[in-house]
């Protein structure tokens, strides 16, 4: 794939020679230096942008524009302040399944709320919830319509470290219950290893695939796994790859 933004000083290539493939039903974590084009990648996969060159394929179909089978979550939970948590989660169903009865929508939303531990908060406004709870609600909204693909752009980036770890576990619970393929953009290497089936390291801009690591950890991994020697080795390798991506040699800074 290749993509460039038009700027005042000519085209600014953000992605060049990017080749990523994510097997159906797996979880891909994408890491890379700041400004390397990770967010552009999410917009390409979501069909919000068209690549200048190359193609995006999802589930055997070429992406030509937005599609109803995609879910998106951002660093900002973007909940609608005038809706209750329940009605926020239902929002995608109003677009994707306009004929679905209200009761079925509510049942689906309540099921997800229970999975993320927000039962009892369905009638609250977003402003009454903490940052972590809002992000949980945002995750529910991104998968309420049972998307094939869930695209997440640093969804846990603005949370404190402990809340973030709680959400990692919630994310794993959701994956066990829902069959989506996931693409997670993140800056957090521990997050990428804990959540991912594979970790993709992008180079600095223009981004291309620099390194792919398969994460060979048990399916029901506990958070403690992050403190074991094999994971420490993985994190070390990824850290070195990020340094290379940033254009810095080992030992340099």
């Amino acid at each position, binding site marked *: 794939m290749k993509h460039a933004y038009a700027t005042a000083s000519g085209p600014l290539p953000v992605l060049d020679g990017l080749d990523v493939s994510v097997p159906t039903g797996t979880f891909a974590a994408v890491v890379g230096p700041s400004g390397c084009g990770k967010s552009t990648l999410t*917009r390409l996969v*979501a*069909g*919000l942008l068209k690549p200048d060159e190359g193609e995006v394929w999802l589930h055997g179909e070429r992406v030509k*524009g*937005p*599609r*109803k089978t*995609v879910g*998106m979550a*951002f660093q*900002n939970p*973007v909940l*609608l*302040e*005038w809706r209750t948590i329940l009605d926020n989660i239902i*929002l*995608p169903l*109003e*677009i*994707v399944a306009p004929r679905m009865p209200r009761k079925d929508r509510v049942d689906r939303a309540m099921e997800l709320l229970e999975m993320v531990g927000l039962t009892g908060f369905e009638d609250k*406004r977003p*402003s009454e919830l903490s940052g972590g709870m809002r992000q949980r609600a945002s995750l529910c*909204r991104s998968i309420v*319509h049972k998307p094939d693909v869930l695209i997440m752009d640093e969804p846990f980036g603005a949370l404190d470290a402990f809340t973030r770890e709680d959400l990692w576990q919630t994310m794993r619970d959701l994956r066990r219950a829902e069959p989506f393929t996931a693409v997670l953009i993140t800056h957090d290497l521990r997050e990428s290893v804990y959540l991912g089936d594979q970790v993709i390291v992008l180079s600095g801009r223009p981004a291309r695939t620099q390194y792919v690591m398969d994460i060979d950890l048990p399916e029901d991994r506990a958070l403690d796994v992050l403190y074991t020697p094999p994971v420490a080795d993985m994190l070390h390798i990824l850290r070195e790859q990020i340094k290379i991506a940033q254009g810095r040699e080992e030992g340099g800074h």
Partner: protein
Amino acid sequence: MLSKIAVPILAIVVFLGLWEALVWVNDWPNYKMASPSDLPPAFWKYKELFLTMGWQTLWRTVAGLLLAVVFGTLLGMIIGFSRIARDALYPLLIGFNAIPKATLVPVISLIFIGQHDFNTVLMAFMISFFPIAVSVGIGLSTLEPEYRDILRALGASRMTIFLKIALPKTLPEFFGALKVAATLAFIGTNLVEIVSPHGRGLGALFKSGETNGDYPLMFAVLIALALLGIILYYAVVMLERYFAGWAERENS
């Protein structure tokens, strides 16, 4: 709850007391400044006129304001969604807003001779649509892209995104502007009512008080106008509570 009603009433009583004292201490005659105690007789003497004229002023103000809401919102949508329209229309809008509307009274009364109701509504409209258009335009143009993307990624149409996201998100700014516009509309209505010969409404009543040297009547009209302004303002506040109550934060 009690303090919500008692405090403003107390403030009004204190204000009237200070006003009365000011006139009394200076021993001003009526033609210099009427005191609050002169007003009830003036209201009583012309009570029918106050009711009919007050109604005239009120309905024309509200009609002008409604026009301003419709036109201002449409204009706000245009400048909110289109960069080109924004660049093209802003200088014109600001220029138009900078013209003192009093100077337009003879202009419109020459264009629409004798159409007193129409001219009054038109002036109320012209003076009050600007804040609505600007606030809706700013509200729409500053919508964070993620808000659009959560629906756009699902293939929602522009209209759906507008109705479900952009419109409700702009409501707090819209009501803020509507409060300003409501008081401005009164100014527009009264401009025409006062300046037009043989006008109607509270402005005309004020003018006749002036002509006849009935100073308590003039002050009574001012108070009646203030009262109407307060009523209309709180009507907007009620609408705001209903439609945009979510934007209000609980005081901690």
